[in-house]
């Protein structure tokens, strides 16, 4: 009989793991809280660094796991350790026994309204990276309609690298996302002036630096080193942004039609309850704790519980997919030995 493997979270990590488990002859069961598969990536428009359409990727991945058991709008109500494996009861009443469990619960976007000085939720000219992706995809956003957009700003590190906001870590993907979004928006508003306010540009990945050079040279994006300190609305219904131009050591201000906040990634609190039931710990950065962060990032401290994707830290799509595959191999080894 095929062995069950329960996957908590149906983002790209959970989906990729399900695909690989199917190929190895297991019976993956995805438990997904929301009403759709794909997690955050299903909200994105195009993916760096190749500008791949995100929806096409999700559709393709969905096609590859049509044989998997998927429970949408379902959560884990209880999970108990057995002698060898776990007994899991879902919110829809289904109960499952599974020797291995994969947690792929991903991240949550930092709530930009917490940084009150940036005016999210106060001024209509201020949106987040997620709102902008949504607008790229659907063209729907009341805050964007009928606006003559001539100047746009991007604020890096919103809720990241911010001890006061409770997140000291760098969210890793938002520098390149800002550049990607700056390019995409410049294509839609070719005459607009675009400003990126950054502290450091952290462009670590394959072809990211080329993205940056391209944004500078082809798209005339202005990069200003300095963290935005405050945003206020003026009489014309625009926002005035203040920062220090730290390269010249002078205060700087600019009036903008649109300001996009690059909200960072924090661990998804939706998994806290499940994690505490089986003693999966939380690391000092707030994400789920792996056995170690060098060699066994996909393994938790609990035998039979594995981790993949952004639940253990900020990750890009290729990193998430690679980790899901690695986690499946660990699961396969675990289930084959004993």
């Amino acid at each position, binding site marked *: 009989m095929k062995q069950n493997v329960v996957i908590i979270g149906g983002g790209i990590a959970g989906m990729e793991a399900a695909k690989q488990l199917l190929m190895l002859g297991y019976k993956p069961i995805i438990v997904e809280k929301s009403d759709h598969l794909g997690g955050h990536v299903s909200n994105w428009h195009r993916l760096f660094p190749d500008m791949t359409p995100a929806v096409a990727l999700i559709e393709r991945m969905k096609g590859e796991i049509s044989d998997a058991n998927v429970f949408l709008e379902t959560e884990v109500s209880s999970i108990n350790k057995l002698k060898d494996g776990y007994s899991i009861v879902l919110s829809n009443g289904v109960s499952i026994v599974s020797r291995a469990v994969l947690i792929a619960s991903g991240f949550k976007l930092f709530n930009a309204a917490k940084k009150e000085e940036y005016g999210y939720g106060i001024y209509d000219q201020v949106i987040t990276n997620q709102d902008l992706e949504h607008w790229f995809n659907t063209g729907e956003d009341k805050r964007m309609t009928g606006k003559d957009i001539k100047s746009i700003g991007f604020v890096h590190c919103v809720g990241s690298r911010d001890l006061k906001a409770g997140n000291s870590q760098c969210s890793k993907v938002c520098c390149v996302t800002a550049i990607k979004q700056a390019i995409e928006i410049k294509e839609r508003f070719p005459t607009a002036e675009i400003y990126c306010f950054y502290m450091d540009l952290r462009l670590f990945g394959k072809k990211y630096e080329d993205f940056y050079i391209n944004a500078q*040279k082809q798209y005339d994006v202005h990069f200003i*080193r300095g963290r935005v300190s405050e945003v206020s609305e003026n009489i014309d219904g625009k926002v005035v942004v203040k920062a220090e131009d730290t390269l010249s050591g*002078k*205060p*700087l201000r600019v009036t903008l039609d649109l300001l996009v906040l690059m909200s960072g990634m924090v661990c998804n609190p939706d998994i806290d309850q499940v994690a505490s039931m089986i003693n999966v710990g939380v690391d000092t950065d707030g994400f789920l704790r792996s056995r170690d962060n060098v060699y066994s990032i996909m393994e938790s401290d609990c035998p039979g519980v594995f981790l993949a994707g952004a639940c253990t830290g900020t990750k890009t799509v290729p990193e998430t997919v690679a980790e899901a595959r690695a986690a499946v191999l660990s699961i396969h080894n675990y289930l084959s030995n004993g």
Partner: protein
Amino acid sequence: MVDFGFKLSRSSTINLDEVDMSLYRRLSEEEPDVKRCMSCGSCSATCVSSGFSSMSVRKMILALQRGMDIKDMLSNCMLCGKCSIVCPRGINTRHLILLACRYYQEGNK
């Protein structure tokens, strides 16, 4: 003038709404690579003049982008071209300096 015992300083704030980038735009049309500058400072670190004067290619490019005057700075350049050799973004900084000098020589302010 009457001394009131206090003075008003002009704000040093850079207002990007009013910044005049025309010279920067003009120069970057002829030397488009200047847009790739990442303010690394290699140019000024190696410059034979920077230790003795206000000359710094990094600051010059920033000043152009902020609509500030670069004339004084330029007068200290010896056109040795060392800055061009070290620039990791491959900007022909010497050419840029020459273009700026030419602009001022043409009688522009």
